């Protein structure tokens, strides 16, 4: 799709057609007092040469070396073909085309994406994606409140093992809508949610339970037990999951007797580079019974009058261009380009390939944990089983240790000793399939030196 800007003549003609002389006149109805004529802090434009130099200087600030940080964004190998194909002109647009059905290729990619995500999650339906994992959870929470008509409380129980950024985003999204969140404390020994702590809520009206799998500490939750408990209370279950982990672990659709109702999360591990935190994409999938409460675009496969296959937007009555203020969400957009890359990534790897990636991540992180916990002063923080991230306790201040590691070209993990953290001196470490045995040994050697105080 070529980008052809309007020429001065085009603009002039269009303005003449509606009887306006200057472009600025279109904004006449905005009162003078509300207008901002100059933006402070925004410098004048730079030339190409200056811009390139600026970006080079900025890029130098990026940390180099071996990355053992996970905590919500994961370094995976992305086959070169993924972005080569995704950045072709035909795909290179981050937005849902307004004349959607004219863009059959885009719709087909989204349809394939939805099919892959629904399969990976064991759910019936997927939308065409949302902004990121945390905002997908926000939408999932709103969905659950609309869908659970048994519940009048608008109260969500949230596992205390959910990523703290997700908790903050969730709070921002729901707090203005009379929805309350109650955090469930996690077990300090296992690092996950025990069914016993839910007992006080048994007589209460709970709208939904939010479970994270694996959880923020890398630990695996007892999803079957938690899902069944929630369903016994007539509460819906929202799973916040890592998509790579789902190639190996039980998918949300199979949790407990009836399966989770909504599964959402961060799509970045599926072919999106870390790139300083974004853009990423969020995914959301659900059971068919909830599809009318799902926000965003859904693409369907159909046939035209001649019986030929075609793709179209479907169930649009949920969306804001039809339902206006009653729409399921004001989000009708999706992360088109990131999703295109994810679709190509999943297609290249195949299900078996994705499973291999998951297995390699699991094996590497467990091998690393074994090496690191052999060092005096380093121990596992929790006894619960973990997937591709593990929480370690250090006998020395985590921040000093991380600084020392960085000097040796190692980003040693995510510190869990920030203000408000329930843990002291804990470090969250991740080793994906990108790490070799030598990398793990190098990390262990560097850490051993630092723990001795050398």
């Amino acid at each position, binding site marked *: 799709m070529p980008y052809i800007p309007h020429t001065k003549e085009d603009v002039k003609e269009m303005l003449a057609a509606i009887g306006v002389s200057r472009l600025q006149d279109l904004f006449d109805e905005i009162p003078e007092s509300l207008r901002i004529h100059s933006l402070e802090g925004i410098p004048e434009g730079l030339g190409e040469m200056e811009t390139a130099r600026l970006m080079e200087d900025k890029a130098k600030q990026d940390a180099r070396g071996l990355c053992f940080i996970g905590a919500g964004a994961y370094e995976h190998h992305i086959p070169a073909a993924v972005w080569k194909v995704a950045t072709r002109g035909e795909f290179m647009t981050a937005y849902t085309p307004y004349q959607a059905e004219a863009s059959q290729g885009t719709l087909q990619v989204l349809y394939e994406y939805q099919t892959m995500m629904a399969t990976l999650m064991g759910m019936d339906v997927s939308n065409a994606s949302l902004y990121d994992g945390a905002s997908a959870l926000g939408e999932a929470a709103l969905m659950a409140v609309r869908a659970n*008509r048994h519940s009048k409380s608008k109260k969500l129980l949230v596992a205390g093992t959910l990523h703290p950024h997700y908790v903050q985003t969730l709070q921002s999204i729901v707090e203005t809508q009379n929805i309350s969140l109650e955090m469930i404390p996690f077990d300090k020994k296992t690092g996950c949610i025990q069914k016993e702590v839910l007992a006080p809520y048994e007589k209460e009206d709970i709208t939904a339970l939010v479970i994270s799998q694996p959880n923020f500490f890398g630990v695996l939750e007892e999803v079957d037990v938690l899902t069944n408990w929630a369903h016994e209370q007539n509460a819906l279950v929202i799973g916040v999951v890592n998509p790579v982990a789902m190639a190996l672990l039980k998918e949300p659709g199979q949790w407990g007797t009836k399966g989770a109702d909504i599964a959402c999360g961060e799509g970045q591990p599926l072919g999106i580079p870390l790139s300083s935190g974004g853009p990423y994409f969020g995914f959301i999938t659900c059971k068919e019974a909830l599809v*009318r409460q799902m926000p965003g675009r859904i693409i369907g496969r159909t046939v035209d009058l001649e019986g030929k296959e075609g793709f179209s937007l479907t169930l649009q*009555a949920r969306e804001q261009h*039809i*339902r206006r203020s*009653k729409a399921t969400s004001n989000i009708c957009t999706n992360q088109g380009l990131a999703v295109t890359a994810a679709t190509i990534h999943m297609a290249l790897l195949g299900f078996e390939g994705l499973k291999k990636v998951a297995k390699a991540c699991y094996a590497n992180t467990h091998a690393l944990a074994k090496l690191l916990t052999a060092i005096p002063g380093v121990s596992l923080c929790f006894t619960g089983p973990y997937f591709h991230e593990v929480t370690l306790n250090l006998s020395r201040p985590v921040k000093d240790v991380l600084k020392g590691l960085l000097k040796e070209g190692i980003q040693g993990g995510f510190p869990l000793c920030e203000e408000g953290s329930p843990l002291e001196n804990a470090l969250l470490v991740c080793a994906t399939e990108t790490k070799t045995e030598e990398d793990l040994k190098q990390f262990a050697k560097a850490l051993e030196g630092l723990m001795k105080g050398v």
Partner: protein
Amino acid sequence: MSQIPSELRYSKSHEWVRMDSDGLVIVGITDHAQALLGDLVYVELPEVETAVKAGEEAGVVESVKAASDIYSPISGDIVEINGALAAKPELVNDDPYGLGWLFKIAPEDESELDELLDAASYEDLVEAEDH
């Protein structure tokens, strides 16, 4: 020309109301309304036992081209909903005043019915809309 049965009462938002022999009030959407919406694909009905107020939203009808709120013509408690519509929303198109009924209300105040339109006034309303 759409059907407007003379024995029913109507709201300005195109719901019809029938007083049942057991004191309950049956509510549906008019033939005119279903024709404007086109083929229905989904009907969202209120929960039984919920209280509704006259003029308040009580559900949604969704067709292939639009979605429209249903407003309760009178105040009261929802006592029954037409469960058949979950699987067959097209009943509203085929038989809007019969098998396509939406829900039954135990009215709080029957005199509210007098505030609704009779068939002749509703016919005027539909005609005025058409022009």
